């Protein structure tokens, strides 16, 4: 009851307004189709249509970073992208970071370094952090801070977020993992 659904929620009964469009894309390695209003964001499609609630909505306006996911390997704000724009593309969310049940090293590092308190920003922080390593921008603390500055944390667990990312960067990043 208090858990998230393990089956995708049924599509809502009525959704007045604009045209429906079917989007076929890959989510965490699995082909998925979503039939939805053309105006539905990737964030709402993930959370409400596919039951992938790991991606968080903090503002729905591109200002907080809680909704960060990867589209074709690049970090994007899922609240600023329409689901329809993802047709034929590959989306990775926090739920898709682990491999064969093994958490991503960044996920481990966030736990080890206590890189969060309430944890609401954490999926977005981790998705940003993983992309950051891939972008080759985790060279110094200053770089990490600059390129993580789109991810707000109201609990201000920032020092531990930076420490976690640094730790993974030192270990050679996530190349072995992905």
């Amino acid at each position: 009851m208090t858990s998230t659904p393990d089956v995708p929620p049924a599509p809502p009964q009525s959704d007045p307004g604009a045209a429906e469009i079917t989007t076929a894309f890959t989510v965490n390695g699995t082909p998925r189709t979503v039939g939805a209003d053309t105006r539905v964001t990737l964030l709402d499609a993930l959370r409400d249509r596919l039951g992938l609630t790991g991606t968080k909505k903090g503002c729905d306006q591109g200002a907080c970073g809680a909704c960060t996911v990867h589209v074709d390997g690049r970090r994007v704000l899922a609240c600023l992208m329409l689901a329809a724009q993802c047709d034929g593309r590959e989306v990775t969310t926090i739920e898709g970071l682990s491999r064969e049940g093994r958490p991503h090293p960044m996920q481990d590092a966030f736990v080890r370094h206590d890189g969060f308190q309430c944890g609401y920003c954490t999926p977005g922080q981790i998705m940003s952090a993983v992309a950051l390593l891939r972008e080759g921008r985790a060279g110094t603390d200053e770089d990490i801070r600059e390129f993580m500055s789109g991810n707000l944390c109201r609990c201000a667990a920032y020092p531990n977020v930076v420490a976690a990312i640094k730790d993974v960067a030192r270990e050679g990043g996530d190349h072995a993992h992905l």
Partner: protein
Amino acid sequence: MTTTESTDVTAAQGIGTSPVRPDGTMKVRGEFAYSSDLWHEDMLWGATLRSPHPYAHITGIDISAALALPGVYAVLTHTDVPGVNRYGLEHPDQPVLAEDVVRYQGEPVAIVAADHPETARRAVAKIDVGYEVLEPVTDSEAAVAGEGPELHPGGNVVRHVPIRFGEQDVTADVVVTGRYEVGMQDQAFLGPESGLAVPAEDGGVDLFVATQWLHVDQQQIVAALGLPKDKVRLTLGGVGGAFGGREDLSIQVHACLLALHTGKPVKMVYNREESFYGHVHRHPATLYYEHGADRDGRLVYVRARMYLDGGAYASTTGAVSGNAATLGVGPYSVPNVTIDCWGTYSNNPPCGAMRGFGAVQAAFAYESQMDRLARACGLDPVEVRLRNAMSEGTRLPTGQVVDSAAPVDELLTRLRAMPLPADRSGEPDLRHLPGGVSNTTHGEGVVRGVGYAVGIKNICFSEGFDDYSTARVRLEALGGEPAATVQTAACEVGQGLVTILQQIIRTELGVEQVTTLPMDTSIGSAGSSSASRQSYMTGGAVRAAALEVRAALVEHAARILGHDRGDLSVGGGKVVSRTDGVLADLVDVLGDAAFDRTVEWRHRPTESLDPETGQGNAHVQYGFAAHRAVVDVDTELGLLKVVALDCVQDVGKALNPQAVLGQIQGGSAQGLGLAVMEEIQTEGGVIRNPSFTDYLIPTVLDMPPMRIEVLELADPHAPYGLRGVGEPPTISSTPAIVAAIRAATGLALDRVPVRPEHLTGT
């Protein structure tokens, strides 16, 4: 009940260590269910129609067009509230749904349930409400003067707290005065208000919600629904931060009403804009201070008048005013004090709890005053504070004598001894300068300042409140291992309480395996996750229950093993004799037995304040923190960068050192936010900036590296000697930063947040 003396048994990952959070793995995997993630087959979505006006009479509500919309299941107004259409933490003065008047912009007027969130939103837009708009009341001082229309029966003063201590008409050689303002800060927790109400077969409802205090929610919900307590059951949904903003009701009654009305589960989630209207904020304040001292800077008297704008409904305005007044001189020993603090009603957004709760507003003023006094006496700012620092044994303005460590002088001297950051030299890295990579300066026009501040906060609930927590601890053998279970209704809001409760059990029972049951109302109240009180209160309750379990276990072991009870202890999963060493495995001694104890635990009682003089032993415990800020200011553009923010705090005993550091970093950041960026700006009661693009909170770039020192001077009255941690760092951070900006610029800066235009004079 008093705390029994500590224990000789320890376990790995007990208190004093920093084990990883038990909920951490789920949080990093995106599997932790926040209240906004909950889902139920067949559920409906709720939405709220809010008043666009800060003050208006409602002349009529027409819901017919909204009801006619396909997919809409219910449109409810105040006539559909079956119980008492009033709630509130201190005074039930706030309607669940507005009747004939709205008193703030964003006040809920009607609620809708529909099969799709978009449908619900459209139905809300189709509700036709007639308003006769009135001139909003927005001035606290006018309210105290008795001017303007009464917003509530009895007038617009929620509470007046006078403090009369020592002589009232003394004079002093050095007098400094000031008028200070604190803007309205928002908790801005990242996870919006949300929850899921599920109607039950017994005619009741189960509510899963992100909150700070399940039982006080329950109490207010049952009154509004007109249901007995056992028909409304609450379970904590995952909480995405709280900071005080979840102490008042938001979706709770509305979601239950819709669920009961439609017979279907109803989910409600606020968006960010609605969240700015949907919870109380930190009271904006105007404070007038006069400090009198001798020529050596020793305080002779402090006189203050404080006006806290509580907005449209009382919420916790009374208690916030009590804190501002009783802590109004700060952590100093002052022989003569005259304070009047008023919490008032207005048509501004309702204000209530936020981290620091009344102490924040006062601290900005009294610490600004201490700097003024230092200047007037030609003293160093730290020196003037040291000369007046309170200590154990000091009599506070309430007459209460501080009866545990109050190391204000030690905090300051340690802080002063910390190394300062290096001066800028050579070609600076843009990222270290005000304006950052916007490339607004290469160092020209940039000046640096250093500022100090120290603050005081009461820990736990004060003024005679019956403050308690309930905990259940069970010990049994499961799968060949001794296993403990802990149950409380205490809300984990991110502070790490679930970790600490497990640590306490490990320490007291010497078992590794500890399960925390979901937090719900099937057990007694734990009180609020606020006032920095949960480690103290629910930690105290869990410890007391664990000690009872241990006593019963030792009794049982003595019987089975034929050994003297007084010689036995438990630890490391063994039953140990002090004389003969390990006697048996705990799991064997337990056998099929289970030890299960529930304890209701209280801190020592406090007193209410005398209504005329403000005298009384009102507080349980005090927490202290001090900050030193180093700030670079670009005086031409008014941009600034906090270069360093160092902190020393006494925590009595660090139950979890890593969590303590996290609280200090987080609290300091929120203080930084209030100092230089965060304010809900209102104009005639209308919020101008309800979004994260216009209400800015500190990013990782805004937070400087922090040096932190943690003192552990045990409070003999508290469990393990601990002192509440969460709020003190929020209090001194703000005035330290502003002091540094003043030191850099020479400006008076009597208002927070400090904005660029305050620095450039434009």
